[in-house]
């Protein structure tokens, strides 16, 4: 009886190895399939496959005079590279409301604002969300003139110019 048990146990490592191999294969394939869900840059909210995005940035900003800085709410590097304008993101505590945005822009001599409105948000920066929410954007019209709006597959791009106070 004992010999029989030993003989059976002798093969246990093959079963363990087989289970480990199955776990590795299934686990690796499943992890690969799931990885897009864990990586925001590749998920459903990403704009990397947006056919219209780059052209929209170029079209929207071509009316802005060269060397004018664009104040942008998201995608700063992409807008900078494809619009060929300097860009600035209003964050790190300096801008918390429309009024502070206006003051900050006036102090630095910035006139143009590009809002990247995507998936119900005008920015991913928490402090700026109220200013560039749907309601916030409507309130902007008192101090900003909307120069253009363009839609892409993943976003709505809005260009504003600060109204000069007399």
């Amino acid at each position, binding site marked *: 009886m004992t010999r029989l048990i*030993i003989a059976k146990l002798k093969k246990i490592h093959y079963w363990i190895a087989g289970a480990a191999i199955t776990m*590795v294969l299934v686990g*690796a394939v499943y992890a690969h399939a799931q*990885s897009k869900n864990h*990586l925001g840059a590749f998920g459903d909210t990403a704009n990397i496959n947006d056919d219209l995005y780059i052209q929209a940035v170029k079209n929207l900003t071509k009316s802005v005079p060269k060397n004018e800085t664009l104040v942008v709410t998201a*995608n700063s590097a992409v807008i900078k590279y494809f619009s060929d304008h300097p860009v600035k993101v209003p964050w790190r505590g300096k801008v918390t409301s429309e009024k502070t945005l206006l003051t900050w822009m006036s102090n630095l001599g910035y006139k143009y604002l590009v809002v990247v409105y995507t998936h119900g948000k005008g920015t991913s920066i928490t402090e700026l969300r109220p200013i560039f929410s749907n309601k916030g954007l409507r309130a902007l019209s008192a101090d900003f003139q909307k120069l253009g709006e363009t839609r892409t597959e993943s976003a709505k791009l809005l260009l504003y110019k600060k109204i000069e106070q007399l």
Partner: protein
Amino acid sequence: MALENHNNLRRNENKNILSFLKSYGIDIAFVIFCIFLALYYTDFISVLRVPSHDGTVYLMNAHDWLNNEPLDEIYRPPLISWIIAGIWSITGENWLLVKGLQAMFTIGAGVVLYILLRKYKGNVFAFGVTALTMINGPVFLFSTQILTEGLALFFLVLSMYFLKSRKEKYWFLAGITIALTFASRYPVFLQAIAIFAVESILSRKPKLALRTISSGVPALILIALVVYLKAGTFTTALSKDTTIDPFLSPYYLVNSINIWGLPFLLVPIALIYRRTYDDKFNYSFIVWFVVSLLFWSASSSNWQFRFAIQYTPAVYFLSILAIENIVKSGISINSTIVSYHGAIRSRLRRIKRISKYELFGDFGNE
């Protein structure tokens, strides 16, 4: 007679084909795997329409290097921008031309890893580790972007390949590839140094280590000097990303299954087997894994899946090693069972004897 000769000839041919397939079957499978991987990359990259934020910064820096303008972000590692600038100097500036650049380096890293492991661990082991690394989600997805992970992985694996040989000229080249690892992605330099330290100790030949230092130090100085002359300073990261917390973050362990999948569960198994430490070839992989995990976990605020890319080969190496240990330790499992069986029987005999003497009231007077 002629028919018999013909049959013999055919039999020999079949035998040759079989022996060829036996010798190179896995290699052929690996080549096919690489072709499919390249097609998968092509398919994925062809539908990319917008570069990522970091990717665009590398494009802007490449533009700046090419047009002699100030760098947009001075703390970014320069190598990818240099390569892009080199390509653009021939073709003209077009970001679409460099979309697949990183994927080539990642596939290259896979090929080097396969060649390295095939030589020391056999082709099945090599294929297992390489295939798992190449299809890993973060490795694959981030390699489709204009980023530095695949580039750094390539130079890191190449450094290991050179250091695993015991030839002086290879150790000289390792110095250059370690410096290029630094230029690809500054923090990954630490992983290259850890591997270099382990291999230097194992080789017990200070001459080899000096060879690496003699090429690596000037190359590092040259890279830093070129960046310094361009930017007026040399910064390797944003200050907020350089703070270290002695209380290590559990981020990479908590997310280990999401990053590496279920194979990660085998890593601790590999580490508890004695066989793992009997083979000195494994040491650099163990140190690579431990140092990287500790380093990235020590960050006080910046943890990301993509930081795990460079030590993914070490994770899968240990996973496959665990399977190998389970398979090959069959003999020790059997002998353990037999020895346990013997020990239990002798204990039982002793208990019986003790009971007998106790019954007769003669305990201790055997």
